[in-house]
């Protein structure tokens, strides 16, 4: 990253550094972007666009990356990948909000620098999380997409988690529906998930426990 940030002073070294950076992280980034976004980005072609653009932005903004005094190579790699993930996520969020045709660089320094070690979510009840995964499988494709997309904006611990009207309006347009319909789909999906989670557990061996 250090060499890559020297693109003004030593373009040749920065180019080589970028090629190496790309070689190290491209497969990882493609894999995580594919898993996360192929359902809304027309499969591999759209995902490849996001990956390309992420590397492009990383190159142009390498100076803003901070290793935060970390020396452990595994942690540096993970921190770098988390940083790439943030760039990709931001690009997708912008795209979902209909800002994809504006080649802006709206990241501020704080966003580039603050890569957390943990997600900020409480550790969570593993059983409950597994149940949610099962509940998500019961949803229709549209409901699942809406839940996955709207949870991109979810911030754990924040008291007001309602999506801003502007985001809903942009999102509805991108997803080719109305804001009201989008909210209804989300509401319906949340009710289904709640019902699934709150239903009494059936023992795995089929014994109803009577």
């Amino acid at each position, binding site marked *: 990253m250090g060499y890559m940030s020297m693109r003004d002073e030593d373009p040749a070294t920065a180019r080589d550094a970028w090629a190496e950076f790309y070689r190290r992280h*491209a497969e990882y980034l493609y894999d995580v972007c594919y898993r996360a976004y192929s359902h809304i980005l027309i499969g591999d072609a759209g995902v490849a666009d996001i990956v390309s653009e992420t590397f492009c932005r990383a190159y142009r903004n390498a100076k803003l990356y901070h290793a935060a005094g970390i020396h452990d190579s595994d942690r540096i790699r993970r921190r770098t990948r988390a940083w790439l*993930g943030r760039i990709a996520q931001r690009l997708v969020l912008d795209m979902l909000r209909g800002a994809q045709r504006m080649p802006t660089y709206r990241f501020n320094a704080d966003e580039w620098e603050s890569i957390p070690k943990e997600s900020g979510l409480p550790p969570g009840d593993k059983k409950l*999380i597994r149940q949610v*995964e099962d509940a998500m499988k019961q949803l229709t494709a549209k409901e699942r997409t809406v839940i996955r997309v709207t*949870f991109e904006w979810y911030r*754990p611990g924040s008291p007001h988690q309602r999506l801003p009207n502007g985001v809903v309006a942009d999102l509805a347009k991108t997803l080719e529906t109305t804001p009201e319909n989008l909210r209804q789909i989300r509401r319906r999906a949340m009710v289904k*998930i709640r019902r699934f989670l*709150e239903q009494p557990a059936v023992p795995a061996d089929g014994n109803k426990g009577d």
Partner: protein
Amino acid sequence: MKKKKQRLTDADICDAISQAIRQSGWSIPTDEASVAAAEERLTEHMPELPNRLKQPKHPSTSADPFIGTITPLWDSSPFAEPMARAARDGGSVPPGIEDIMKRDRKGAERELRDRLKDKRNDG
């Protein structure tokens, strides 16, 4: 014995959904711990990069951002993938799909005209 229903708060459910989305790889890892989990998954199944990512263009050679070409879709229509591929590879577009593209373009142009008109009226 009758099993009791568990009562969950909205926050419990939202946190669990968010965790499930992260753990399933349905959201992109943006912190070190999630990256570590994703890397473990990656060692089990290494993806193959599409051809255009195998020979990437260096950022300094491409002035325009790639992002302008992305067209998100609500659902995966059977036309979406061939259209995107044809546009990128410079291949031919089947006539049926070309009609749809023309119709979409006209619709987008009409929408843009309407929006500009509204703006003028507002201003």
